């Protein structure tokens, strides 16, 4: 079966910055593919290439087998794009916004009305359809924006950081909306810098950094590849953190990491159960009270750390949401 997206050696340079430095990526049809990477990794640039908004300097992007460089119009007929901002018109109602996009997709007046109504229903916005978008919450706007990319019934939906800037509730609601779509069979490519989001939504994750794909696989495969399990301990008192760290240093296979804010010490271990048992004994001997102690698989952040050597930090204060090409910044 033709992959929904196939990118080979895609390069794009903005000034002195290689936004994409030979990106290879294959997204199969039938599930959500997430591109995970920090700010500036090239996520938005790549999505813009798939959406035919920019032309790569080199390489090729095929969307459902169609060359985005050679036949952009045909690609635009089968994609829906929801960018980093809710690009719906605040001075129009939800219904008006969706009808407009439906009309632009080429639907007649009547069909556009039907499509708009059914999308509102699916996005759980039916009650708000006649209200001006200005009165919507951030989460509602994003759902409407998602809906706007759906009225043309795209084969492939492109979501560029769909939940950036949303509160936890808005995020959960948007996730539910995306999961619904997937259940209906729309292919989705989403970019995110939130590990949890990729973990929740995607069956296939491509980790990119500095404009290159570093590794790809299912969340489980990636965690297997990062190897070792992790033991995590949260002492009751922050004063015990050094003692916990010392205990873990003896058991773990690498230097433990202490997170002061979360009052937590983590360490990668070669095995699992044996080390956990040993640790609990040591903590007991030293009478260190703990709130939580456990053995878990590596998180995607640890996967990211293992493959790139740096942390994925979505709270990067240098992130610039106003920049037109944030990934090139």
């Amino acid at each position: 079966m033709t992959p929904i997206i196939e990118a080979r050696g895609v390069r794009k340079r903005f000034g002195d910055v290689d936004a994409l430095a030979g990106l290879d990526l294959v997204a199969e049809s039938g599930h959500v593919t997430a591109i995970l990477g920090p700010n500036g990794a090239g996520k938005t640039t790549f999505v813009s290439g798939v959406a035919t908004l920019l032309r790569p300097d080199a390489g090729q992007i095929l969307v459902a087998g169609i060359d985005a460089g050679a036949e952009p119009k045909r690609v635009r007929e089968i994609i829906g794009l929801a960018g980093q901002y809710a690009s719906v018109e605040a001075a129009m109602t939800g219904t008006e916004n969706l009808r407009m996009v439906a009309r632009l997709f080429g639907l007649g007046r009547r069909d556009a009305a039907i499509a708009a109504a059914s999308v509102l229903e699916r996005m759980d916005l039916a009650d708000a359809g006649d209200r001006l978008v200005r009165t919507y919450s951030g989460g509602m706007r994003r759902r409407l924006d998602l809906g706007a990319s759906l009225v043309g019934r795209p084969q492939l939906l492109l979501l560029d950081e769909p939940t950036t800037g949303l509160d936890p509730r808005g995020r959960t609601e948007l996730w539910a909306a995306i999961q619904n779509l997937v259940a209906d069979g729309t292919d989705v490519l989403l970019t995110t810098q939130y590990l949890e989001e990729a973990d929740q939504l995607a069956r296939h994750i491509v980790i990119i950094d500095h404009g290159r794909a570093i590794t790809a696989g299912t969340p489980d495969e990636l965690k297997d590849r990062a190897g070792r399990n992790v033991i995590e301990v949260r002492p009751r008192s922050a004063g015990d953190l050094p003692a916990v760290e010392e205990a873990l240093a003896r058991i773990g296979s690498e230097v433990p990491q202490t997170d002061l804010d979360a009052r937590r010490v983590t360490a990668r271990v070669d095995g699992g159960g044996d080390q956990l048992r040993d640790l609990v004994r040591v903590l007991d001997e030293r009478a260190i009270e703990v709130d939580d102690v456990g053995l878990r698989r590596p998180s995607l952040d640890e996967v990211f750390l293992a493959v790139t050597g740096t942390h994925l930090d979505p709270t990067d204060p240098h992130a610039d949401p106003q920049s037109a090409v944030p990934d090139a910044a």
Partner: protein
Amino acid sequence: MTTTDTRIVGPLVETPVSHATGADFVISALQSARRTILQFFRTPQLLMLGTVQGALFLFMFRYIFGGAINPGGGLDYVDFLVPGFLVTGILWLGMPASSGVAEDAATGVHDRLRSLPIPRSSVMFGRSIADTALTLWGMSVATALAFVVGFRLHAAALDVALAVALLVVAVYCFTWIFITIGLVSNSAQAANGMATLLVIPLAFVSAAYVPGRSLPGWMQPVADHQPFTVLSNALRSLMLGGSEAVGLGHSTTYWVALSLAWCAGIFLVFATIAVTRFARRR
């Protein structure tokens, strides 16, 4: 179409169209225009600015500066002022288009539109239609007010109709300057700043509000030849009974023809830049 979308997406199956092929140029332009017009009339700040600003300026010139300005040739200042005032309305009322376009670019509206299967040039043509309509709205309000403060036409109905037509054409063509400014700016503030820098000299270093001969000598060569003087002269000649009646050297036809030449030039240059700029893939 060679591709057929066989995917079934929930309740959307009700939609009888099996594949989105995109709107044609006209529908796409009209939908884009409608959006801009709704935005204007439903956003109190925009509506206020676009409606009341003209009135304020008119009052200011008519009653505050007007007493000190002598247009000569036995003309009332209010009659002299209104045609020039309408012409510079192209600038003052057209200016907000710059920040509007820049805002649409910054908030992802343009990316969304550029990802749709529509002729990309239609979006900016739609915008130009909408901005023309909005500027004409502001001018209508100002014109109604002009009659209230004493303005009277001194011309045949045909000449007045020509004056209106010329104004509409000029509004349309010059709108493209502001659209272009919006497209090349990184933010709404930058666009507004750039537009202001353009509008103030064009509006004031001209014969729009004062007789050209009252300007300092070194300024006159610029003022005499720039398009807003030419347009003011054309509109004055048409509205007040000919170029001799308003003390101008050339015939009315001369001023109208020169105005149209300016309009055509501005349209060709800026519409080309704007459309290319919007359609280009970075």
